[in-house]
């Protein structure tokens, strides 16, 4: 039997990646001649959740209840899953490749002294069982042989598309309230809050950063850029040459010798994208480059680009923002 740890979101629904793990489990089940798939859920199972687990072909839904599971403790969850594993004599235990999924499976693996494969993408054969998985942050793929039982692995996010099963499962709820040893509750979440703001500087924590390079043209070339920054509540980040030339202070520098930023959106204006600079901004989620040179590295590496002089483009953007806000 295949047991899949299903994680819930704040609304009590199964997270997408857990559904992907169930989809993956089904392909494994089919290859193995129709091994049944059970789910294990910590806490309550709402009717909606049960329905969706049924849609994904789940036979039994094992729940772990009781005070021991009221707040997260990796070892406690592992202890509970051990109970389920024992009661169902499962040969495979899977989870989504989330931080929590990986953590819990690692606990199970350590306790049982078996191997565990993280971020699996697929499998090549059952005997021996060879999985392919992400390594080097997804830049490479490893073929790995998993020979211990139970077989433990997490499924990399979006490795498969979550697809309901052709035939519904029964999704029979089987409630467990196992004893958890005190030692397994030592490392336990004691409080959960809204995330605290990052205090390590406005550049480093900003959601949006407006960047300025040599294209600003001079000490007095920053007015439009500062206005855009103001409109977006974004700090200004500049390239090394700008601080070297004394146009802006050093603490605004982004790059190898300045700050490393990771905003949702970075808007480098008139920055060609010297490697020095790229090292400081490469982890931005989106980059809108404004540059006269369509071949500039910053443009080719960006997600979005406008080709043109920043002194024309930026005032037009500022005007457009003000127009929409006024309207």
């Amino acid at each position, binding site marked *: 039997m295949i047991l899949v740890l299903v994680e819930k979101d704040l609304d009590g629904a199964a997270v997408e990646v857990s559904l992907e793990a169930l989809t993956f489990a089904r392909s494994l089940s089919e290859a193995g001649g129709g091994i049944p798939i059970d789910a294990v859920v910590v806490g309550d199972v709402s009717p909606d959740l049960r329905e969706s687990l049924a849609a994904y072909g789940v036979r039994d839904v094992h729940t772990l209840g009781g005070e021991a599971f009221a707040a997260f403790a990796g070892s406690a969850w592992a202890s509970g899953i051990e109970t389920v594993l024992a009661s169902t004599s499962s040969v495979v235990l899977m989870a989504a490749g989330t931080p929590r999924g990986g953590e819990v499976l690692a606990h199970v693996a350590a306790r049982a002294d078996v191997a565990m494969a993280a971020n699996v993408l697929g499998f090549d054969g059952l005997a021996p069982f060879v999985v392919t998985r992400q390594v080097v942050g997804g830049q490479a793929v490893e073929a790995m042989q998993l020979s211990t039982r139970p077989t433990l692995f997490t499924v990399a996010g979006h490795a498969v598309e979550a697809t309901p099963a052709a035939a519904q499962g029964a999704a029979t709820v089987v409630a467990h309230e196992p004893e958890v040893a005190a030692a397994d509750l030592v490392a336990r979440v004691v409080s959960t809050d809204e995330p605290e703001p990052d205090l390590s500087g406005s550049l480093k924590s900003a959601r949006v950063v407006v960047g300025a390079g040599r294209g600003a043209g001079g000490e007095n070339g920053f007015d439009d850029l500062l206005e855009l920054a103001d409109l977006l509540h974004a700090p200004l980040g500049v390239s090394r040459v700008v601080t*070297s030339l*004394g146009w802006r202070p*050093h603490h605004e520098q982004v790059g*190898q*010798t300045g700050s490393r930023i990771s905003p949702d959106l970075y808007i480098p204006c008139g920055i*060609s994208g010297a*490697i020095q600079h790229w*090292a400081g901004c490469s982890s931005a989620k989106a980059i809108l480059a404004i540059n006269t040179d369509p071949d500039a*590295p910053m443009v080719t590496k960006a997600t979005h680009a406008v080709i043109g002089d920043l002194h024309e483009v930026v005032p037009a953007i500022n005007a457009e923002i003000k127009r929409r806000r006024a309207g």
Partner: protein
Amino acid sequence: MAEVPSTADVVVIGAGIVGNSLVHHLTRLGWKNVVQIDKGALPNPGGSTGHASNFIFTVDHSREITDLTLDSMKQYKEMGVFTESGGFEIARTEERMEELRRRMSSAKAWGIEASLVSPEFVKEKVPFIETDQFIGAFWTPGVGVVDSLRAGTIMREQALATGELTVVPTVEVTGLDTEEAPNGNRRITRVRTTGGDIEAGTVVIAAGVWSPKLGDMAGISIPLTPAVHQMISVGPCPQLAEREGEISFPIIRDMDTFCYERQHGADMEVGSYAHRAILHEPEDIPSIEQAKLSPTEMPFTSDDFDPQLEQAYELMPDLLGAEGAEMRYAINGLLSLTCDGNPILGESEVAGLWTASAVWIKEGPGVGRAVAEWMTHGHSEIDLHHSDIARFHDHQKRREHTRLRTTESFIKTYGIVHPAEQYASDRDQRLSPMHDSQQKLGAVFFETAGWERPFWYESNAGLLEEYGDAVMPREHEWDSRWWSPIINAEHLRMREAAAVIDLSAFCIFDIEGPEALEVVQTTCVAQCDVAVGKVIYTPVLDAKGGFRSDLTVMRLGEHHFRVVTGGAHGMADRAWFSGHLPEAGTTTLTDLTDDVSTVGIWGPRARDILASLTSDDVSDEGFGFLSCREITVSTGSGGGTTVLASRISYVGELGWELYVPMGSAAELWEALLDAGRPHGAVPAGIGVYGTTGRIEKGYRAYGAELDAERTIIEAGMQRPKVKAADFVGKEAYLAQREAEPQAVLCTLTVDDHTSASGTKRYMLGGEPILTPAGELLTDGHGHHPYVTSAGSAPSLGKHVLLAYLPPEQAVIGQQLAVSYMEELYPVTVGSVDATPLLDPTNERIR
């Protein structure tokens, strides 16, 4: 994917400082349809220009490099990308102070403002330096930093503005196609790229560290190696941050620790040339995508840098240890090194395929201009012969050679390098047949063009006692390093009896075919249409009338000439003659260098000695000066060896050069030594042949007195008549004959060698000639006189200097001074033309 034009008049491969400068100067000089490509993106395609430290120190011991640097600086200034900061080269030891004094000689010779200053003077300008770490410094106020990327963009844009340049970044060269002419010479036809093919008759490889890879595509060798220069950036330093701008403190070169400290905004960049040489192969440089920073910014290896870091910290503890100053950027930056430290410029053996590689930021724009001039006119204003790609011999084209030599020379970047210093690595590449015998004679070998040449023989040490003080011993270690008084003893014995000299390093090639006469007439200034059996000494000029070479030509037949030239410059001469062969292939050039050895015998007893070994007529009547013919010499094996004898002399004595097949050379050598012994003859080294013998006779040497910036007139080598036949440089030469010279090559003697400390000092070359009061002299070109050659003239008992003087100073008996290690020594002009100080009427040669 970018696409390239299908045709171009010229393709420039590379958009670093060199490629950008080239496209600017080529379009300025009228080139049309210029295409520039680079595999990287603009403005920084990822080569060495992108991570350069961008500072320029102007004083180098090499005139060629200094001229290129000064021209580059001028161009950077015109573009508005130069910031003057001043620069100090500091000395931690007395030995280094002496080197800085020598550096002052170069500064004066090249006319660059510089002075020696105290640690306190340095501290005043660089307040965060620790004065107890050094004893003095060389201050060059004109030193500064440039923005080489900006300069590249400006030059590219200037070229684009002419409408004749197309720039295509992000295309990679995949092949260079050539075709072969009937005479075997190849020509470039096409550049293949990932963006399509470009038909082009002229292509320049300006691809820095990748140049060897591109050269391989056309089957030519561009022998440079990518080498690591380590650099870290420490900051922000409050002492620097409080001043605006990129640089406001002078740059420090800490010569004895092989480090520099250069402000960059709020950061201090510390660079090092001291670590072990870290070399890479061009094929092992990461691609743009694989590189973490850029392909030429390789991962930093901190272990190599740690010792330098410690020394830099001792020098600037308050700055480098400042609160908040962190090491945020550290690279192993790749730059290009060559076996002799010079760039690789000029047209390769594939016609139309040029290179401008192994060039540093300080030389970039100057190289661009000079190579563009060379491509346009066939010559450049600045003499580039030390950088000519044609200079390399086969053994130097091996990657192994470049690797070994650069490994050895890396530390010389900031080292104290004696002008005669020899390399230790990759020696014994070319051994003359007499090598074993010479080793037994205790020869001390110096290398020329890979040949091991005896400089003197320890077996002659016994002569020292015989000649006593006439051997002009030198007291000071520096003056006598790579030198021996035995040279002077050998010299005196030659003048007294005779000397046998191994000249196997000569580069020898035959020109044969119906157009042979035309080829030599076109290339040589002297009349070559002479009787068979005549020997011609001739200058070889470029089109502007500057020296390309000087060499001898023998007419061996109606359609057969043999050219004999020095080993060092031989490959460039061969390329020059080769380039003047008719395309049809009817006349050929055959290199005999590895087949024919040369042994010289000169001195008053030379005729007696040779006569004892041959029954051929070697009398003056039977074998006149400047004639050549085959004679039979009896050698050890009992039989006779046929040798081509040529009566000529570079040492001012009666005698012959004997050309003999390599296989018979050792026997001939032994026979001459054996036959010479009863006459008092000894083996003599190149110290006699190259310096003492020639300098007494005022004979000029290519590379010292003669180069492309000098004329026959200024060198005092003009003959009464100019031949009727046309030759390269004739028009310019005729014009030079009509004009007054701007400088005159003179022979000077040193009147007093005694330094302030009482030690007698002997100049080695490169020193400035000043007025007796130490004031600068300036010739008609605006240049300042310096010593082109220096050496003992033992037969005169004088130390002799050659120098080009302003015409008004070129007066026999004129009193002047030479500055050596920052002291003045009186000198007197002895000759103002080619008239020798010894034996002015050349009686001894007869």
